[in-house]
C-alpha cells in the first residue's frame, strides 16, 4: 500500500481502503474525468482537489477539467443556482445564450479528452450541456448535482433538464433534491478530506496564532460561521443571533469568515449588507479570506467554541462536516444536507430562527460537558459517514454498477 493510502487507512480504517482497492482494480489505467466551473472556492473545488489525487493513487487515470466563461455566463449560472434553490428568477434569453455559447466554446477544447474518457462526472449546472456537445463519447457520463434542488423554479429546471436527461445517471446529496428524470438518481452525500490543510490536525501554536492575527480574545467565547457571503447562508441571521446572546453573555465574540468564489458575482453586495448589520461592534469580526486560506480556516474552527452554519438553503454544508470533524458543537439551519449531519442533541442542533440559534448557543456555553460530548459524537459520526474515502467508494460503486449493466 502506498504512503498516501496508508495515511488514509490510519484515519478512515484499513477496511475503507481495502474496499477502494477492490473497486478500483478493474478501473486501473482507465480514464476518468471530472468537470466543474471553478478550481478555487466552494465545496466542489475542495472535494476535487483531494479526490483526484486519491483516485490517481488507486491507479485510475483521473483528470479535473474546468470550464471558463465571461461575466454573462457567470450571471446566468449564478441565477440558475439561485433558481434551482427556489428563487423565482426568470433568466433572459441573452443569458441563456451566453450559457450555451460558453459551453460550446469549452467543448471545442475539452472534446478530445471527454470523448476519450471511460468515466465522466459533470458537476452542477454550469457544464451540463457538454454531454450533448460530445456526440462521439464512449464512456459512462454521470451528472452530479451539489445544489439543494428540492424546489427548483420550473422554467429554469425545464431548461436545464433538456441537458441532464441524457446522462447515464445522476446523483444528489439528499432524496429531497432529486427530480423526475429518465435515469437512475443515486444518493451520495459529499465529504471532507481528513488530510487536507483545512482538516488536518494543527499544533497548539498554529491554532493560537489566529487569536493575535484577528484580534480575538482567547479568554472569551467565540462563535464562528465560515461561508461565502451569500444570502442563503444567512450571515445577517447569525449577527441577529449573536446580538441576542450578547444580552446575556456580553463577553461573546463573533467571527464571520468568508471568501469569494470565482463563479459568485453577488458576494460583494452581501458583504456590504453584513458590514452594515454589524455596525461598530468591535466583537464582530468580519473576515474576507483568500480562497487558499485553508489552514487559517482550520485554525479558526479549532479556536472557536461553537460553530454556526445558519443557512436558509444548503446543498450539503461541508463547513458543518469540517467543524464536526474538529470535535466542535455545531448549530445549523434546519435545511438540506445539514439535517443529515446534525442529529439533535447528539451531534449538534438544528434551528429555524436567530432566536433558536441564540437559545442553543446559550445552552451550550452553560454546559461545557455537553459541548464536549456533542463534539466527540460529531467527530465519530463524520468518520463513519462523511470522509472522502466513503464518498469515493460510493462514486466507484455507482460506475461499477452502471458498467456491469451495460
Amino acid at each position, binding site marked *: 500500500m502506498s504512503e498516501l493510502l496508508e495515511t488514509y487507512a490510519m484515519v478512515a480504517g484499513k477496511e475503507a481502503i481495502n474496499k477502494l482497492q477492490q473497486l478500483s482494480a478493474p478501473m486501473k489505467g482507465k480514464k476518468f474525468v471530472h468537470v466543474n466551473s471553478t478550481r478555487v472556492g466552494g465545496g466542489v473545488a475542495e472535494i476535487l482537489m483531494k479526490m483526484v489525487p486519491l483516485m490517481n493513487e488507486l491507479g485510475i487515470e483521473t483528470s479535473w477539467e474546468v470550464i471558463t466563461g465571461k461575466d454573462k455566463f457567470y450571471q446566468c449560472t449564478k441565477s440558475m443556482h439561485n433558481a434551482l434553490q427556489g428563487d423565482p428568477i426568470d433568466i433572459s434569453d441573452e443569458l441563456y445564450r451566453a450559457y450555451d455559447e460558453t459551453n460550446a466554446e469549452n467543448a471545442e477544447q475539452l472534446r478530445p479528452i471527454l470523448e476519450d474518457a471511460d468515466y465522466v462526472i459533470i458537476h452542477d449546472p454550469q457544464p451540463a450541456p457538454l454531454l450533448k456537445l460530445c456526440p462521439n463519447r464512449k464512456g459512462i457520463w454521470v451528472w452530479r448535482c451539489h445544489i439543494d434542488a428540492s424546489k427548483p423554479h420550473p422554467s429554469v429546471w425545464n431548461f436545464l433538464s433538456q441537458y441532464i436527461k441524457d446522462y447515464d445517471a445522476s446523483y444528489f446529496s439528499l432524496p429531497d433534491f432529486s427530480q423526475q428524470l429518465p435515469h437512475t438518481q443515486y*444518493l451520495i452525500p459529499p465529504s471532507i478530506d481528513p488530510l487536507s490543510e483545512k482538516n488536518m490536525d494543527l499544533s497548539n501554536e498554529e491554532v493560537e496564532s489566529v487569536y493575535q492575527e484577528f484580534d480575538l480574545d482567547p479568554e472569551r467565547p467565540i462563535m464562528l460561521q465560515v461561508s461565502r457571503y451569500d444570502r442563503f447562508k444567512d450571515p445577517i441571521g447569525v449577527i441577529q443571533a449573536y446580538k441576542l446572546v450578547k444580552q446575556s453573555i456580553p463577553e461573546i465574540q463573533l467571527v464571520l469568515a468568508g471568501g469569494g468564489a470565482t463563479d459568485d458575482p453577488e458576494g460583494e453586495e452581501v458583504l456590504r449588507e453584513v458590514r452594515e448589520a454589524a455596525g461598530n461592534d468591535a466583537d464582530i469580526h468580519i473576515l474576507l479570506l483568500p480562497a487558499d486560506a485553508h489552514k487559517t480556516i482550520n485554525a479558526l474552527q479549532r479556536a472557536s467554541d461553537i460553530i454556526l452554519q445558519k443557512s436558509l438553503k444548503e446543498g450539503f454544508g461541508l463547513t458543518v462536516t469540517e467543524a464536526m470533524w474538529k470535535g466542535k458543537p455545531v448549530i445549523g439551519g434546519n435545511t438540506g444536507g445539514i439535517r443529515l449531519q446534525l442529529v439533535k442533541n447528539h451531534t449538534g442542533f438544528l434551528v429555524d430562527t436567530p432566536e433558536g440559534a441564540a437559545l442553543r448557543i446559550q445552552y451550550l456555553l452553560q454546559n461545557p460537558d455537553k459541548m464536549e460530548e456533542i463534539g466527540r459524537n460529531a467527530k465519530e459520526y463524520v468518520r463513519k459517514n462523511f470522509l472522502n474515502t466513503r464518498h469515493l*467508494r460510493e462514486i466507484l460503486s455507482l460506475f461499477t454498477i452502471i458498467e456491469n449493466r451495460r
Partner: protein
Amino acid sequence: MTLKNNNTQTLEIKDCEILNIATGLRAQNLKEFRDLLQIIHPDCIHYHFWAKKLRAEFEEAEYNNDFAIWASINLHENKLAERLSLINPRMFQNVDELRSKLIEVVTLSLEQDKCSQDTKEGEKFQFTRSDIVLFETGHIISNPGQLKDIIPNLPLGAVYYHFIESHNTSSNIVTFVENAGDEYTDLAIRLSKLDPYFFRLPEMQSRASQIFIEFFQGESA
C-alpha cells in the same frame, strides 16, 4: 441419518455496502403515502424495512421500520406507527403480500383515525431503494465450526449481508448451517429463531456469536 448436502459446499463471506437510489416519489400525507405504496418498486419496500440497520444511530429507534418512524415522528400518528412497526417482513411469503399488508394497515388508519395531516416542508416520506455492492473479505468457510471465530470480527456490512440481504439464498448463514449436515440441526434451529428484524446489527452479531460459542462448547463437552 440423512445428510442434507455434500461436504464440498463452501460459504464465501462478503462484506456489503448499499448505494441509495432516489425514486423521486414522495408523500406529504397519509393518503399520498397509501397511493404511492400501491405503485412503488418492490425494492423500496425491502429498503424501508431493512436499510436502517446499516445507518449509524445514536439511540435505538422506537419503531422497527422507516414507515413506522415517519408515521410517528412526522405525522404524529402513534397508533399507526405501532401497527406498521408490528409488520414483520419475515412473516410474509413475498413482497406483494407485504405490500398488501402495509396498504391494509394504512387504509385502516385513514378510515378509523381520520389521519389527514400534511407533514411540514422537508419531512415528506421519500421512497428510496438501493443497489448493493459486495466486497471480498478473504474468508471462505467450509464448515460451521469456522464461523464461531469469524462472526465476532465480521464488519457490520457482512452481518447485514449474510443474515438479512441473503435471506433464503445459499449465502445466508442460517441456510448454510441448515445445509451443513444433521449434526448442525440444533445450531440451525437456534439461529433461525434469531429474528434480525428486532435487533440492531451489533446486537445481532453478538447474539449469533453467542449461539455458535454455546453450540460448539456443548459439542466439545
